[in-house]
């Protein structure tokens, strides 16, 4: 029994955890290097998981190289839980409805970072009581093995958003790699069960101090140039700020930010009529940066790119709180890295923050 809840093991123990999950019938989703990018994919062997790799992330740029710690790639849990294309149903020629059948899979995310854990919690709020059935189906059997982030990337700001770099709750098991030590924490009943599969002992004082030190340093590294104190109100006060027009003057309107965002949930429904008289209705990801997003027949509510960009920013940091009680941004930095022209969300927010605070 450890009073801190933390246990000490070795990185090799992770393979036991991995096997344990497979044994319990879970499909394990973890990071694997595919074509020089860290991808979140179904992994069958522990050895497939990315190892000795580091991701270099900067605005508009992503590379990998040899290293000892990585954060993430373009994929987030959303890829699995809220797929980009999902056939809702087929309306047959006689108006009967055929719903798709899906396998009852049990997914385990292995080694996702606290920001992505937070993104799942955000999705929980968004889907709420009436939300997406497919999401809820997967969510009800979901296991979350989270790796705490000891070395945030230059695009990360989870500490500011309060989502990392250490996972606080909502996981089944979290682990932290410190050199050849592994610090493990169980966050659920299943987590305790999984912990017992590993060869761990209660954490000792020296390692605890090391853990604390590593997490504190990571925390300092994952901060943006603004705080969340009154952030929704401050940003809404800056609703007419020229910062939006200024930043958006570089924006392509391609919607990559929406598409890589782990929490963006907007969807369009596409009709696919067929010659046999049936027709599908397919749900596909949409994004507020797309021109057609706010278009209606005979009108347009946000024809200008700055207005669409402003909606993106304000939704994440202001409206989302009002709608769902959490921020829509988890500080993962994907929209910064994967923006083809490298627009930095943090910069936009902090400029408006400063402008409003200085009464500008």
């Amino acid at each position, binding site marked *: 029994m450890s009073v801190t809840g933390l246990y000490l093991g070795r990185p090799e123990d992770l393979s036991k955890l991995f096997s344990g999950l497979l044994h319990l019938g879970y499909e394990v989703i973890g990071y694997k290097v595919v074509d020089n990018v860290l991808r979140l994919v179904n992994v069958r062997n522990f050895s497939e998981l990315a190892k000795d790799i580091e991701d270099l992330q900067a605005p508009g740029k992503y*590379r990998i190289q040899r290293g000892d710690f990585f954060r993430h790639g373009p994929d987030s849990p959303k890829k699995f839980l809220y797929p980009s294309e999902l056939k809702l149903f087929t309306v047959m020629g006689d108006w009967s409805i055929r719903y798709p059948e899906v396998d009852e899979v049990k997914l385990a995310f292995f080694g996702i970072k606290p920001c992505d854990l937070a993104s799942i919690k955000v999705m929980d709020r968004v889907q709420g009581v009436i939300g997406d059935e497919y999401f809820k189906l997967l969510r009800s059997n979901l296991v979350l093995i989270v790796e705490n982030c000891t070395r945030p990337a230059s695009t990360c700001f989870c500490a500011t958003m309060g989502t990392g770099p250490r996972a606080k709750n909502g996981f089944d098991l979290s682990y932290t790699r410190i050199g050849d030590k592994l610090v493990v924490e169980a966050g659920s009943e299943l987590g305790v069960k999984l912990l017992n599969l590993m060869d761990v002992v209660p954490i000792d004082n020296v390692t605890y101090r090391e853990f604390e030190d590593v997490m504190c340093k990571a925390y300092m590294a994952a901060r943006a140039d603004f705080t969340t104190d009154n952030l929704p109100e401050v940003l809404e006060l800056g609703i007419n700020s020229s910062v939006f027009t200024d930043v958006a003057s570089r924006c392509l*309107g*391609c919607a*990559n930010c929406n598409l890589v965002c782990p929490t963006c949930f907007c969807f369009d429904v596409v009709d696919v009529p067929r010659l046999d008289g049936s027709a599908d209705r397919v749900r596909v990801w949409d994004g507020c940066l797309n021109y057609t997003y706010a278009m209606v027949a005979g009108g347009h509510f946000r024809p200008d790119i700055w207005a669409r960009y402003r909606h993106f920013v304000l939704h994440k940091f202001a409206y989302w709180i009002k709608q769902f009680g959490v921020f829509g941004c988890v500080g993962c930095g994907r929209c910064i890295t994967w*923006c083809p022209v490298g627009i930095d969300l943090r910069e936009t927010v902090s400029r408006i923050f400063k402008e409003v605070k200085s009464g500008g």
Partner: protein
Amino acid sequence: MRKLKVAVYKFSGCDGCQLQFLNMEEELLQLTDKVEFTMFYEAKRDNKPGPYDVAFVEGAISTPHEVDVVRKLREESDIVVAIGACATYGGIQALRNWANVEEFKRYVYPNPEWIEALKTAEPASAYIKVDYEIYGCPVSKEQLLLFINQLLRHKVPVLPVDSLCNECKRKGNVCVIVAKGTPCLGPVTRAGCNAICPTYGRGCYGCYGPMIDPKPELLAEKFKELNLTSKEIALLLRQFTNWAKPFREVSRRYG
């Protein structure tokens, strides 16, 4: 229901777009229950004169004769649909618009005086009112089929107009600009092809033409950061849809 009378006709182009009708294979059999290909030289011998309900026209308009024919087709058809990069933007034929056609003629043909060519190769819309355009080089048979299915259900046909990035990311591709520094026209190009090129790790060539509200001038700035020369940037934008105005203007700016 009366069958839809359809004409498929080609101007200056490679036949690739009308071939997409034939590539439908299985669906083609079902399609012929609802559609009568009244004129389709590529597919049959027995071609009948108009009027037609719908005329699908492929290829750029590049000779005076083609102007006459496309005008006649317009008169004979309720709906005219331009299909493919050539019929919608002039296609690769329009590459000659960047130079002097008389010089081309002298260079290529032993008797250039026999060649009757217009000064520029243009999309069908330069000469007639085009009701709808289906983009791509070639057009995708899925889009073609969707278009016809929409028409058959009396729907004003709609095809995607936002960026290719949407389709590319939905498909699970990784951005080639960000992960490899490969120049890609995806962020300014209309979706519709299901991101074929980026799926194979290559940049988009923009064959579907500019998306709605495109910003090629900003993407060109990014290409500069990727150490492309002005000439390279100009040529990137000067491919299958070089004559599309937003691409043409930025390409011109870079040389």
